[in-house]
């Protein structure tokens, strides 16, 4: 059987949250890197690069 190549087609997940009394206006951006790494470990990828501004954070992931 031929060895398959790399699967390019992505899976995409978008989650929205709300809070009557959130801890901060920063909301989910307060999730620390250690916790994010645990999430990404479950997915089986890691952060390789990042950038952010006052509105959101963007991470490039391995894979």
């Amino acid at each position, binding site marked *: 059987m031929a060895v398959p190549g790399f*699967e*390019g087609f992505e899976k995409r*997940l978008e989650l*929205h*949250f709300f809070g009557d009394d*959130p801890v901060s206006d920063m*909301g989910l951006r307060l999730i620390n890197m250690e916790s994010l790494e645990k999430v990404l470990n479950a997915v089986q990828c890691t952060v*390789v690069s990042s950038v952010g501004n006052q509105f959101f954070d963007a991470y490039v992931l391995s*894979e």
Partner: protein
Amino acid sequence: SSLFIYPTKIIIKTCGTTQLLKSIRPLIHYAFNLGLTLCSCRYTRGSFIFPKSQPSPHSSFKEEVIYLEETLPSNLCYRKASVMLSKLSNHNWHVFTAGDQEIPIDQTLFTIEVCMTELDRVLARKFFRRPDDDKNSDAAGQEMTELTGIDNIIPGAIICDFGFDPCGYSMNGIHDGDRYSTIHVTPEDGFSYASFECVGSIYDDMDEFSETLKKAVQVFRPATLSVSTTSSSHEVWTRVANAIEPLGFKCRSFAVDEFPAAGSVVFQTFTSRRK
């Protein structure tokens, strides 16, 4: 692959054999600790090139939907799963949405997801690292961004790019404050693939949006592409077809469906007339 974190929104997009849906439980947990509750979920993907290589819970769309149904909290009671078919074999669009009836969705925003296959071979070669290059992956990514014209797709965007070794490319763009764009490339001949995704508002300049889409497709000149638009506005998908067909593509299929907590999803496929 990419991850975007806003104060009340997370978008995570991963390829390969990643187990994306396993992120849901821990994300709900960490959000709860911050006083936030999940109110909507949207999961989308195309047809895998190598479906038999996908691990659980991604071995089939049926398995993914079962996993989502079991993982999401009960307040997300409006749920729908659908496979939007195209006339092209292996180019179908899989959509699952779930929403809380109490929380309305923002109907001004739209999302465009472009999937391109059979990339132009000459253009795809630009996403291979040179064997003798001594650059780190950030510098290699920056070189690919400039060499391919990706930096001109959305002028003024802050770009975070990464050139994988020996080949492959990912970039995230930040522009106009809270907008993102992202590109991922697998350039190997035989299973070459590139994706482009961006968000916009129905109040944006639609001519500008069309130009952005054209420029993104021209970076790769694929033989086949599909475009999924999630929007409450009919103008967005119309603009997609009007932007892509003059580039030498013919629309092969069109499908539309309504989803709770997401709006209308329109899935269009195109093939190059040069093929």
